[in-house]
């Protein structure tokens, strides 16, 4: 499991000349029927830049990645790589998924060599060396751990010398230690090879640890584009790191509108008291409607009625209400 960066550096032969690719997305929208998943995304990435996209699940970040991978077509807007319009799957672009998607019926090295021609075994072996798994070349994927499988998937992507590497929550299913190890490996390989990297993640700390720029997508549009100027091999414990993390997190969670005691102001939109004992009260807040279950007696006691202003207290397993 231990990857020595020094060793990878030593194994790395003369670094490649192929630099990253420039990505330009203009006014990208993507609709699935009535659902507008992306609503006019503009994003420019310079060659060799590492950009992380964060956002809630369903915000459209993975859809954007699939568009760039050529797996999906945008409804409108244009996508180009190095100024050339992107149409379909591009050999300069490789994507790594949350699940490793290794072919179970092929050995590790055969998986890495998928789609290669000619002297693929040497290239695949070299890629496996770079992720520290050359000794597992002839094993079946089923015998690897989750982290090892992701490293094989990374080797498989890198063996094609991509100029744009798309990472769709590739570390989402790994344990915390393996994640950090993988983050360092990805960072090191990115530094060595200079490809453009676009990482989709819901882990803000991961985004800040790796990216030159963190982009927040909310409801299908970019709402934050933040440069991360920390020196590399970033330490998570530092105040600068924590400050940036807090900044992004507060935007992601909308904490600026939720006060320190997890209270959100709102007004009652409906009281459903079909039951003699319990009633449901719907409260509309800035983040949508929350529903609190309270005893029917207390509805009268506290004078809750439709339209009245209340504080909704977000607890770990329920919503409590307070009068203002």
């Amino acid at each position, binding site marked *: 499991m231990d990857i020595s960066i020094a060793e990878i550096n030593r194994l790395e032969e003369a670094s490649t000349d192929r630099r990253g690719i420039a990505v330009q997305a203009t006014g990208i929208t993507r609709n699935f029927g009535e659902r507008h998943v992306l609503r006019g995304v503009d994003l420019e990435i310079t060659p060799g830049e590492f950009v992380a996209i964060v956002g809630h699940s369903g915000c459209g970040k993975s859809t954007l990645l699939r568009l760039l991978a050529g*797996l999906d077509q945008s409804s409108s807007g244009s996508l180009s790589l190095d100024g050339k319009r992107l149409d379909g799957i591009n050999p300069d672009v490789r*994507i790594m998924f949350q699940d490793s998607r290794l072919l179970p019926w092929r050995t590790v090295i055969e998986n890495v060599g*998928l789609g290669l021609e000619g002297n693929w075994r040497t290239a695949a072996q070299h890629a496996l060396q770079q992720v520290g798994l050359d000794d597992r070349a002839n094993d079946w994927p089923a015998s690897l751990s989750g982290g090892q499988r992701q490293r094989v998937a990374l080797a498989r992507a890198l063996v094609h010398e991509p100029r744009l590497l798309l990472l769709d929550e590739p570390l989402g299913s790994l344990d915390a230690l393996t994640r950090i190890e993988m983050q360092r490996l990805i960072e090191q390989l990115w530094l060595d090879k200079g490809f453009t990297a676009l990482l989709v993640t819901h882990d803000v700390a991961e985004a800040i640890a790796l990216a030159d720029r963190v982009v927040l997508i909310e409801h299908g549009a970019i709402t934050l584009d933040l440069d991360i100027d920390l020196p590399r091999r970033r330490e998570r414990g530092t105040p600068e790191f924590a400050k940036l993390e807090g900044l992004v997190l507060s935007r992601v969670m909308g904490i600026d509108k939720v006060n320190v005691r997890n209270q959100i102001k709102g007004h009652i939109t409906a009281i459903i008291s079909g039951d003699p004992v319990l009633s449901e009260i719907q409260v509309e807040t800035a983040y949508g409607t929350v529903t609190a279950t309270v005893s029917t007696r207390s509805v009268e006691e506290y004078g809750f009625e439709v339209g009245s202003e209340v504080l909704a207290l977000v607890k770990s397993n329920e919503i409590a209400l307070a009068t203002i």
Partner: protein
Amino acid sequence: MAIQIHNFSWQKLLPWLLPTAIIVIWQTAAQTGWLSSRTLPAPWDVIKAGVVLSSSGELLQHLLISTRRALTGLLIGGGIGFALGLLTGVSRVAESILDSSIQMVRNIPLLALIPLVILWFGIDEGGKIFLVSLSVFFPLYINTYHGLRSVDKGLIEMGRIYGLSRWALFQQVILPGALPSILVGLRLSLGYMWLFLVVAETIASSEGIGYMTMNAREFLQTDIVVLGIAIYAVLGKASDLLANFLEHRWLKWHAGYRAA
């Protein structure tokens, strides 16, 4: 180490324990006259009948005929089933044209077709091979079709990104992914193959294991009847071994089939 070897040999012997015990009890019961040879001949008599029939070359002749019928049926019916399964598995158009009709025919009890089969093909080889073909067709068709349809979509997408051509995608991703299911179909087909061969050979035949058995029944030669049944059992087991062999060979990547 010694204990391991001891355990190992036990494991190998265990499956033979019950059949051996049954044969010993059976032989004893027959020898003491408790079991009439009209009801069930002694195992030893069955073996003797086997030796006699083998030395005359008669048994081998019947066996070859039966095996040839079975394999011809498997090749024709299984081949068509596999091919159509591939077709409906990869093409939506073929699926809409063919699948519902095939599923409809599948639910007809094949034995109900026997009168028609006799009318169409007579009582010659054609009818027998047709019945066997039809019986192996459905398991192979359904499992091939289902296997292709249930290949992980994520893997197919991944293959496309890595620049595999349509043929390479089929050959390297889709077909291997469907293989476990296809082999289940083959295993079922091999079982049906012998079952329907027995039925076909007992209707009207002049050679084959089924004929040998029916003929022996006419003359109350229970030893030959039991011999015929035993041969079917052995053939069934042989098919099973063949399926096992293929699974171990082609699915060695699959944790569920890896040799212990």
